[in-house]
């Protein structure tokens, strides 16, 4: 038996196939979900992939949050089901209020597509459970609106409650402005909700699982997600 991970395709999603591929490569069962689906097909984890859902009109993720499938995902998340939002998926989670803060235009105003390093700040999430704290993972970013912002009190709360999951860093794990690609406040690349089951990040682990095409920093995250789901199923 393998973990059933649903990947939602919204009109304008781009990375749904890579996310499904990453799940399968790491030994899970990828289940395609459609934005208009009224149910989650009994999946045990959900990935909201990157792309430009509904053209990113109005604001990134603003329209996707009203998709029928999002109502189900909100319930699934409330019951503790693991939900991973990548890039546009992270933006959707913020717009839905499932994660705090927002993602605004990169400080450079440019779309950025390159490999970055991430430092794992907490292992209290389904996707970092099997990773060492402080471990540095290599994977690509590709976004125009990836600058994470939140109010100072919200940032302090995230920090104090260990809800910052990833920070942009150098190859040795040093976090500094020089390694911050988009101006994200406090170098934040990914965060989690209070319970820890909902995680959003701007970088793309699903593009970093196959050694033939680049870095493999995403493998550990998908492996963690699958083993977390299996551990949950065994409880």
């Amino acid at each position, binding site marked *: 038996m393998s973990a059933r991970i649903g990947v939602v395709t919204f009109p304008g999603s781009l990375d749904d196939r890579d996310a499904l591929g990453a799940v399968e490569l790491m030994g899970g069962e990828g289940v395609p979900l459609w934005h208009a689906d009224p149910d989650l097909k009994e999946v045990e984890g959900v990935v909201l992939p990157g792309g430009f859902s509904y053209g990113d009109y109005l604001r990134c993720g603003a329209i996707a949050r009203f998709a029928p499938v999002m109502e189900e995902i909100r319930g699934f998340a409330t019951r503790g089901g693991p939900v991973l939002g990548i890039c546009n998926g992270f933006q959707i989670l913020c717009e839905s209020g499932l994660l705090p*803060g*927002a993602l605004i235009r990169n400080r450079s105003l440019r779309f950025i597509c390159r490999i970055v390093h991430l430092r794992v700040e907490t292992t209290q999430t389904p996707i970092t459970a099997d990773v060492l704290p402080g471990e540095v993972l290599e994977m690509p970013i590709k976004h125009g609106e990836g600058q994470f912002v939140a109010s100072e009190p919200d940032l302090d709360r995230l920090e104090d409650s260990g809800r910052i999951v990833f920070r942009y860093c150098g190859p040795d794990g040093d976090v500094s402005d020089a390694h911050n690609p988009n101006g994200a406040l406090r170098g934040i690349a990914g965060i989690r909700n209070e319970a820890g089951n909902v995680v959003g990040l701007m970088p793309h682990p699903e593009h970093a699982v196959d050694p033939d095409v680049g870095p493999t920093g995403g493998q550990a995250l998908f492996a963690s997600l699958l083993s977390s789901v299996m551990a949950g199923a065994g409880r």
Partner: protein
Amino acid sequence: MRFAVEVLVTLKPGLADPQGKAIEGALPTLGWRNVSGVRMGKHLRLELEAGSESEARTQVEEMAGRLLSNPVIEDSRILELREA
């Protein structure tokens, strides 16, 4: 009754506005060296059917809070509301 409404959505004060900054950086190249504090926002126009002006206002305020703006990063206000 039919109402015409204009809504202004602006980035909250203090939040970085890279677009405003880029505009501010471009103005001096055209000779305007006396400009500062450029902030960029969105202007929306819509029409709606409602029983009264106050009903229309309440509805538009709700739209602004739930969809037209993201209250985490943006402020919104009704610039104008009149019978169409």
